[in-house]
């Protein structure tokens, strides 16, 4: 395996580890409060944060 494939493999392994670690240490997900599949027409405003968020 050459160095470019090693760096790509390392990158994906670290990303997978981060996601797994984050899933374990974050609050448990309650599926009863699942967001609607389609926000448009759901009557629920998006609860997500965007790059334009200013934190107020």
């Amino acid at each position, binding site marked *: 395996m050459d*160095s*470019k*494939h090693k*760096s*790509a493999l390392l*990158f*994906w392994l670290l*990303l997978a580890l*981060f*996601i797994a670690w*984050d*899933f374990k*240490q*974050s*609050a448990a*997900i309650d*599926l009863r409060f*699942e*967001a*609607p*599949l*389609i*926000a*448009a*027409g*759901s*009557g*629920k*405003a*998006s*609860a*997500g*944060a*965007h*790059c*334009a*968020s*200013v*934190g*107020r």
Partner: protein
Amino acid sequence: MASLRGLALPAICSVFFLAVAAFVSIRQAVLFLVGIGLGSCLAAARFGFTTGWRELVRARDPRGVFGQALLLLLASAMALPLLSQFEELQSAAGPIGVSLLVGAFVFGASMQIADGCGSGTLYKAGMGYALNIGILPLFALGSFLGSVHLPFWLSLGSMSPILLLDHFDAGFSFALTASFLIFLLLMVRLYVGPSRTWIKANWVYGAVGLAIFASINLILAGQAWGVVYGFGLWAAKLATASSLFDPSQNSFWGAAQHQERLRESVLLDVTSMTNIGILAGAYLIQQWKQRKDVKASTQQSQSLSAKQWAIALLAGLIMGYSSRLAFGCNVGAMLSGISTGSLHGWIWLCIAFCGTLIGIRLRERYGF
């Protein structure tokens, strides 16, 4: 054996999709697929905002910026009527002030040195480019630091976002957006001169694909496509977990919506999920190109010296920082801002292009 290896990645993506659908949220699982679509379009079409601007300036080649203008036009044509029809959907509305001006200028310069904007860094990292893999974590760190300092930059002076849809209906807002785009293309025409080729297939199908997936993202997530927030969130989570940062003492991360993002899994964050999808989509395209024997080298076009590596990594850090000051990168601020009728998107475009003129000079100076 090779065909089995080729099936491994789609299988991993399928398992991830099913796991997210079962244990997190069906919407988030579908947003992962949207991200794969976005990443596939970016990687297959080599749709680089940075490269398009550089080719325009250096070679007077308008094909890239024509593709970008087409993307903005198509995305606006879809987003503006949706936003006016469904009040649940939110524009990418950024404030206008010192933060935007400084951030956009510095971002425009640094993206040329790092050879990729937010989406460009993401899809190239997914394709296995070593430089972009190295830049990605620094971009995340910069994005986090920028968000921590954002309240200071906002205190230097800013005004509330200005949205076309607050003043006009969707039809007139689109007509205004299209008029501005045509004006920009006329300026480009004056710069490049006659007898230039304006249309290249990959830029066109890339623009169409990205506009469609960006619109699907808006419909499903309720917010416009963004990249940078997810990066900053990942770094903020690591900093918080390692007790290096107390979000409650910061007015950005202390806000309720960001506290919620820090508390929840990144799998529930819209931007993080599409970012993961973009990485996967770009990797899928890379694998497909290799199987089809299409030239898809993951080596840089030239090997970089240690000094060039250091400069590019520093540029990645600065790019992340400035992207938060500018309320996004080419995607979150320019594409999503303009297509959802926010004035800050237009200001971002003009100021970032001025920064790019400096960035190209710096890029040449350091031999990239």
